[in-house]
């Protein structure tokens, strides 16, 4: 991994045959084949909870959170991986930690901010507010996801929560 002028590392992964990436600054760990326990009656984008080093963390279904519709057959839960993400570590009120369910983790790639192409709702398959833009990596399009937005709480009663 080169770290030339201004480039920051991103962790890329596959989801429904597309490449996506999270900034590595938010990545705590990648857990392979986790055991996810479903929680009845929870928000649509949460698949359940899993045990991460003794803590109970929610597992976020990234597809559902981004309102994406599957084109390909889903990979079985047992073969998925979870990227544990964390934001606002310093502020207990805003601090969020959760796992994002992905199909397969790919590489760590260095991206210069200048190479990130902004997107809008018309030319993208994804809600533009959830993404920081796209990047052309070896002729494949990588959609860079906004970690904040992916982790954000959705339910209105939660949003008001302390």
């Amino acid at each position, binding site marked *: 991994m080169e770290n030339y002028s201004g480039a920051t590392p991103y962790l890329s992964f596959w989801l429904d045959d597309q490449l996506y990436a999270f900034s590595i600054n938010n990545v705590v760990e990648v857990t392979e084949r986790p055991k996810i*326990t479903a929680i009845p*009656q929870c928000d649509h984008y949460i698949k359940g909870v899993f*045990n991460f080093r003794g803590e109970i963390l929610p597992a976020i279904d990234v597809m559902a959170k981004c309102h994406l519709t599957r084109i390909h057959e889903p990979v079985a839960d047992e073969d998925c991986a979870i990227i544990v993400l964390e934001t606002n570590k310093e502020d207990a009120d805003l601090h969020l930690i959760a796992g994002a369910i992905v199909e397969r983790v790919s590489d760590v790639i260095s991206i210069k901010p200048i190479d990130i192409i902004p997107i809008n709702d018309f030319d993208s398959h994804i809600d533009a507010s959830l993404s920081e833009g796209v990047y052309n990596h070896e002729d494949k399009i990588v959609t860079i996801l906004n970690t904040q937005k992916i982790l954000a709480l959705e339910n209105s009663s939660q949003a008001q929560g302390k």
Partner: protein
Amino acid sequence: MSQPSLQQFKLKYVEEVNDMLNEMEGAILTLEQNPSSIDEINQVFRVMHTIKGTSAMYDFKTVEKITHDVESIYSKIRDTQGSVSKDVSTLTLECVDLLRHLLNQPEDGDDALVNDFLARVAAINGTDNRTQSNNTSQNGGDLPPQKNICTYYMMFAPEADITNRGVNIKGILNSIKDLGENTIFTRSWRDDQADNGKFYMYWEAVFATELPFNELEEIFLFVHDEVKLEKIADIDLFSSEDFKEQLATYQLIETPIDTAELKAISQLLQPQQPESTEPQQPQPPQIQQPVPVAAPNHNAESERKIIAKNIEASDTKNSGIKVDSEKLDELMNLVSEFVNTKAEMLLIADKYDIPELHDIYEKVDKLSNKLKDNALSIRLVPIESLMLRFQRLVRDLSKELGKQVDFVTEGTDTELDKTIIDNLAVPLMHIIRNSIDHGIESVERRRELKKPDHGIIKFTAFYSGNNVFIQVQDDGAGMNPEYLRKKAIEKNFIKATDHPTNRQLFDLVFLPGFSTAQKITGISGRGVGMDAVKQSIMKLRGEIEMDSECDLGTITTIKLPLTLSIVDALLVSVAETQLLIPVYVIDSCIHIRHKDVDESKGRIIHEGEPLPILDMRTFFNISGTPPEERIAVMVKYKDSRVGIVLDKVHGEHQAVLKSLGKYFSNQEYLSGGSVLGDGSIALVLDTNKLIKYLKK
């Protein structure tokens, strides 16, 4: 790691001094009840003395001056075997507050405050001086009381960075000079190993003092690692001219004093006491024991007892250490992970059928259970730790309001989780404040009602099952249900046509904006109080209730879980979902057929009685075929029972409760989750909320 900074050492100093002040505050409050209690007088003296010493070391001149002056008051009281007057105890409490204040902002900004305080201390010191001089003149030609003086050797070899830590070397040396007769040697040595052959300073001192060894150690608390302290003899060697001559010869040499040599010399000198007429000869060993030098003396005798007691007291105090609560949380996490790993080990042992591994597993299992219990018990703190604050509150507030209030406690050794204790202080303060302000009547009013002048606030804590109960009871005015009703109608909390029970009326007190205080004082009555109290108790998974009888008093009862982090629960499952139901809510379990559940329309007949039931399959929207045989767990809800229908019961489980976090804060029927032995997660049902949720 970087070098510990000056700031860190100052923080440590502040923390230690705060601890000592807390200790002292308790002693003063005891002294108010029992003004001549010698143990407490000594304790105050000791704390003042220690703070003085350490403050001198860090150059906190104001603190040093204050503690010095207060110490003198107590030293006089101690010497004259007097008692602590109300003025002195009030002044000492003010001293505690002033010192706390100064510690928070060490800049000497409040000179006026300090000077005012010192002036008052000086006034008391002056009057006491007079009484003391009277005493002396009465006693006439008596000899000064003989003290139990010992001789010590000390070497102080500071690290090169000592001044960076804010330690005032001169302060240390001065504190030795204060102790008694002394000789101090200033020496230096050259470090030939170092590149530039640095010179280092070190000091040696021989001194005689009446302070016992452990108190000397306290003086050097902050330079503990750099001080070597040794007792040379059990008598005051400075009374011997030969010894002083011997010490003088050490001034000439540049190497450290050989303490063995010093001890040998002291043994030779010991027999040469004025009374001894024997020629110098080897003495039988028992003479080297501390012998009461003069004829049995009353003062020296009691002095020694006090010292012995002091040693005992400080021993018990030193048996605990302070630990950051984050470290305890981390320990709990590690223990629960360890328990999970243990389960994996069993899986392997079973899979490959290795008997030896099974044996080891059993040992690990036993150990891990002990470890878990131990780790949990560390988090438990006796409720006693809160009492000091309350005693002070009652004292100050009753004085301010001109009421006479006795604060009685019971069961303060009851232990609760540290987190609960920490979060209880504020709500309990509020309740006690209410009792003094609105509960206890003025002395005149109490006389009218033929009650004793002194009102009583009783604080009781006790265990009951998996809960701790805390009660605050006062014998004051109580609440008038009629008045509450009127007020509630006025404020639109109830309709004029409603006729609530007394219990329901008392519950209104906990509603936001409902204040019954006839006048708003600075202390309470703004109508936010009891609502906030209830909120904080509920956050601790507790319940609060009030009961009152007009003119007889009010009793507030708080029910709390023993610990927030562990629950004894029954592990059950419905389809794939594993659930935990706390054992204390369970009444019984019964087998039922699914067919009966299906046709029941929410109610089955059990033991001849209709019983409301709740099928978790329906509640969770689980599809698929349920088993024919099912289980209904009967849970207690208020005065009735509700059957929760599940698929299977697996057994009891001690669940380490984990929060599910922000993502599930709207899942009211779940109070958390717990990681099971195999690493999977079970959800903990909050049946009260579940049933309430359904009734909505």
